[in-house]
């Protein structure tokens, strides 16, 4: 395996680690409050590894729900990963299925966003993506187990901790804006997301906004970059 890529990826994960440790801890505390053991909380973070759905699942468990609605909710909340995985797949053409299985299992919003902030780093470099993802994953598990064990020792609402991940996302979003029309897509996506979230329950707004704004992106791009006319009269070529 490409160890230099791995180390690069791990380093790139540090801002995520910074966000995951406290949020993971918050999850650990909530899980304990809901009656899960430290082992169960840790296993959830190990196997599921999906922040939003873990928090929601824990809340549903604490309200005494059966497993089926929890599983269904988890499925729909994490459905956006389908699209993220599709985007990442563009950069891993031809890789072995085991590699892809391993990489895709650790896909999260944050590691996806960091990966996409510099696609030249991930292009056909599973080592980098792996380093990025496993470092983040370990931070998440550590945070969860730590939170479950330590309970309420640190005040999670303080030290600006609740804003760590949002700040990270904001920076990752800005990094995506490389051309003028990207800025407009961001504004359109932002406003749509507010509308969809207001109008629809749950997390549907995320996927709908993503589809809508991506669609708008394709349309705008077509208008801005006229495709070169194909062929001129009878010229063509020898073939």
């Amino acid at each position, binding site marked *: 395996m490409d160890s230099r890529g791995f180390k690069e990826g791990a380093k790139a994960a540090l*801002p995520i680690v910074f966000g995951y440790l406290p949020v993971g801890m918050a999850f650990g505390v909530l899980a304990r409050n809901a009656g899960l053991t430290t082992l169960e909380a840790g296993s959830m973070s190990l*196997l*599921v590894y999906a922040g939003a*759905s873990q928090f929601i699942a824990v809340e549903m468990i604490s309200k005494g729900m059966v497993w089926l609605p929890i*599983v269904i909710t*988890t*499925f729909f909340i*994490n459905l956006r990963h*389908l*699209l*993220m*995985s*599709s*985007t*990442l*797949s*563009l950069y*891993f*053409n*031809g890789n072995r299925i085991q590699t*892809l*299985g391993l*990489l*895709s*299992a650790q*896909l999260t919003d944050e590691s*996806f*966003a960091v990966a996409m902030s510099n696609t030249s780093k991930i292009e056909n470099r599973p080592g980098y993506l792996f380093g990025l993802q496993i470092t983040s994953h370990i931070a998440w598990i550590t945070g969860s187990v730590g939170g479950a064990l330590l309970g309420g020792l640190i005040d999670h609402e*303080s030290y*600006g901790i*609740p*804003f*760590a991940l*949002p*700040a*990270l*996302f*904001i*920076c990752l*979003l*800005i*990094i995506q804006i490389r051309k003028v029309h990207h800025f407009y*897509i961001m504004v359109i*996506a*932002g*406003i*749509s*997301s*507010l509308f969809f*979230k*207001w109008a629809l329950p749950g997390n549907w*707004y*995320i996927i709908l906004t*993503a*589809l*809508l*704004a*991506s669609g708008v*992106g*394709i349309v705008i791009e077509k208008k801005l970059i006229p495709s070169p006319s194909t062929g001129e009269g009878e010229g063509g070529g020898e073939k």
Partner: protein
Amino acid sequence: MALVTFLPRFFPMAFLTRWVLPEKVKKGLEYFPISILSAIVFPILFFNGDGRMEVQPPPLLSAIPVFLFAWKVRSLWGSVILGMAIYWGLGFVL
């Protein structure tokens, strides 16, 4: 939970890396990160914990400097620390 989370993550990567996608779809996918990041960020600034729409001064006011800082400096670490510091500071003022 683990299984239904894993499958939507795995299938696209497993299958799409083996096929060539039509140009339009590829372009759409390239806009996906911007769209989804916007969808994640903006609601944080305008919705409260119960899911009701309501301007949220602490994250909104913290977000503006972070936006500007990220625009100029483009540092992930820096943005996170700056954002946390401002948010924490605002907690004493607001």
